[in-house]
């Protein structure tokens, strides 16, 4: 295998892991915001200010 293969694979795998971290952060944040909104809508909101 050429050295180019190892360089390309390193950058691609790094990009995938970083993209996974960003995606996880966005999805998780949206899920919590939605859950808080649902609790608010049911009148449970104590001081559920969204961030």
């Amino acid at each position, binding site marked *: *295998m050429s*050295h*180019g293969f*190892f*360089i390309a*694979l*390193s*950058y691609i*795998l*790094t990009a995938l*892991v*970083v993209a*996974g*971290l*960003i995606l*996880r*952060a966005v999805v*998780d*944040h949206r899920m*919590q*915001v939605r*859950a*808080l909104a649902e*609790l608010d809508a*049911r009148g*449970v*909101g*104590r001081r*559920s*200010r*969204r*961030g």
Partner: protein
Amino acid sequence: MRMIRELANPTRFMSLSGALLPWVAGLAVLLLGAGLYMVWFTAPPDYQQGETVKIMYIHVPAAWLSLFFYMIMASSALGTLVWRHPLADVSQKAAAPIGAAFTLICLVTGSLWGKPMWGTYWQWDARLTSMLVMLLIYLGILALWRAIEEPNRAARAVSILTLVGAVNVPIVKFSVDWWNTLHQPASVFRLGGPTIHSSMLVPLLVMAVAFTLMGVALHLAGMRTEILRRRVRTLTILEAERLDAQAA
């Protein structure tokens, strides 16, 4: 110290981090763009390794972040156990998956760099093995967070494990000096100054700062989400108690 005490209020932290996050993330993207441009268009090939040295520009920042996030977790563990800072365990929990991800990147890119340079993907030398131990500690910490449901109990258990695992940080850093390893000795953060030529050192430092800002942005975002998750948990318990009281 006063600032850390002021940040103990989660609402204040949410407001401050909400304002800070877009700037940190924006700066990270800008620096990452600049760093990648330097790596691919201005940094010269190494006289021995040729273009394969380009792996260094992601491998070294990932290794740095692996240790950086462990130090954040160890400081947060002290914050949880000693000062009982309300955001310390939030910080610790948010840092663990980021640190684990960068440790994985470090190991994988190191392996892919090792094959063409050393002729092998893996060698049980002190640096590689201690880095693998670091990944296992991160995974153990992540598993412990999931195993204990009550956040305060989980935080105390994780803090103890984190502080025990901190012994591995100096071993990773100094393994190349203490033992005879296949991995090269330190060439950037060393007493006598960097041994890398500025044409490679500058892109490497730009990439390191970009990775650090990216990690900090992810950490802030993770802490904000964790605060929301705890609000959801508290309100869900309150709702269940209210329903129980109505039924009784």
